[in-house]
């Protein structure tokens, strides 16, 4: 309980809106650069890394809720559990010290991506009939054509993009954490897990 109170300090609460804004701004930047990635959870992963799994999970959850409820992409609201898991896992991997070494951060990203694909597949299947409306739906089509069910095909679509996407995101967060002054990291409850 005491730990939780420290995790949810005012500075963490101030960090959350900034993290969500970073998610959205970078997500749109990636879209402008026409990259076949999302990179829309870098802020969430950063918060998970510096403030622990619970603050990370809250950031991911609210990020999707706000992105959806802002009206820009209402479907995002339905995928809020995915955002939550990404923040939670980033926090857990940070606790395990995996943000201290670059290649561990990348492995953590791959694992997080696999879990994200696993969780998003049933949501896609139920809420939008197994498609995402983006280019990666081609993969779903290939798997459907090969005789796979809707859920496995949606999962295959997720696996084709999520692990790479999260690996890059985790790597970016590792870079950022490494570049931050210790004086600043000290403000957060999980500084000792990071460097």
């Amino acid at each position, binding site marked *: 309980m005491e730990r939780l109170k420290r995790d949810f300090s005012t500075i963490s609460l101030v960090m959350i*809106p900034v993290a969500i804004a970073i998610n959205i701004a970078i997500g749109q930047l990636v879209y402008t650069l026409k990259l076949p990635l999302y990179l829309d959870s870098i802020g969430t992963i950063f918060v998970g890394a510096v403030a622990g799994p619970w603050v990370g999970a809250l950031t991911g959850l609210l990020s999707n809720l706000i992105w959806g409820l802002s009206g820009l992409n209402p479907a995002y609201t339905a995928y809020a559990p995915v955002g939550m898991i990404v923040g939670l896992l980033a926090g857990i991997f940070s606790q395990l010290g995996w943000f201290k070494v670059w290649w561990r951060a990348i492995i953590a990203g791959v694992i997080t991506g696999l879990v994200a694909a696993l969780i998003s597949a049933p949501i896609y299947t139920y809420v939008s009939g197994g498609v995402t409306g983006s280019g990666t739906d081609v993969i779903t089509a290939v798997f459907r054509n090969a005789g796979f069910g809707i859920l496995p095909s949606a999962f295959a679509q997720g696996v084709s993009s999520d692990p790479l996407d999260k690996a890059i995101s985790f790597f970016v967060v590792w870079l950022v954490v490494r570049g931050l002054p*210790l*004086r600043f990291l*000290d403000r957060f409850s999980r500084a000792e897990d990071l460097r």
Partner: protein
Amino acid sequence: MIQLTNVTYSYPRAETPALHDLSLQIPAGQFCAVIGANGAGKSTLCATLAGFVPHFYRGKLSGTAKVAGIDIAGSSLAELAGTVGLVFSNPFNQITGARFTVREEVAFGLENMGVPPAEMAPRIDEMLRFARLSEQADQSPYALSGGQQQRLAIASVLVMRPKVLVLDEPTSQLDPIGSREVFSVLRDLAATDEATVFLAEQKLEWVAAFADRVLVLHQGRLVADGPPAEILASPTLSQYGLEPTRYTQAARAALGAGFRPQHPDLPVTLEQAVEFFR
């Protein structure tokens, strides 16, 4: 109202203390300014009076610091919030972001203190008039100019009726017009004699214009303390990396060129300069 006894403070991971054996008493109603070069410890002193040293920055604080009878180290930021108000340089970062209009932004502190809504409205209106923001009451805080945002920050803190108002270089990020707007609000505040104000400032002309008392900080130590006319005209000012006001400089130049004034006191304000050169 403010009482510091042998206060020494070091930031975490810092080798040398930012404040060094500071002792100080400021009575209620005084407008006290602290001057000093960059890194002299002005901001740290402001942060100490508002409780952010040690509660936010952590680090090591020794000696005792009391504001309005409350021991800073022994209380929390939440307890100090209504007692000490703090305004700092960046106007943008002082907007909470959680309210959509100027009026609601001023209300934020009162809401957190649980002030009844019926009592809130007149207090907010009065404060908006004082800060000359009545016309902007229904605008977004983000739509204001820097000077307006800084007056909004002052209003938002003053509306909570703190016993002490601490201002940490409130105009250093403003343009000249914005600075003047902020100083004219501070001048009104100084004129009331009720508010206890502690102002850290680099612009000595403004300090000379309305401070009752001036402190000089140098490398974390209090090196001078007295009325503005005495401190600001003192020849030791440049030793502490400070430049005298242009009135003092002009008077010194005139003395050097052989000018013999009727009153030998060096001027620090425009009015005194007029007297000096009469």
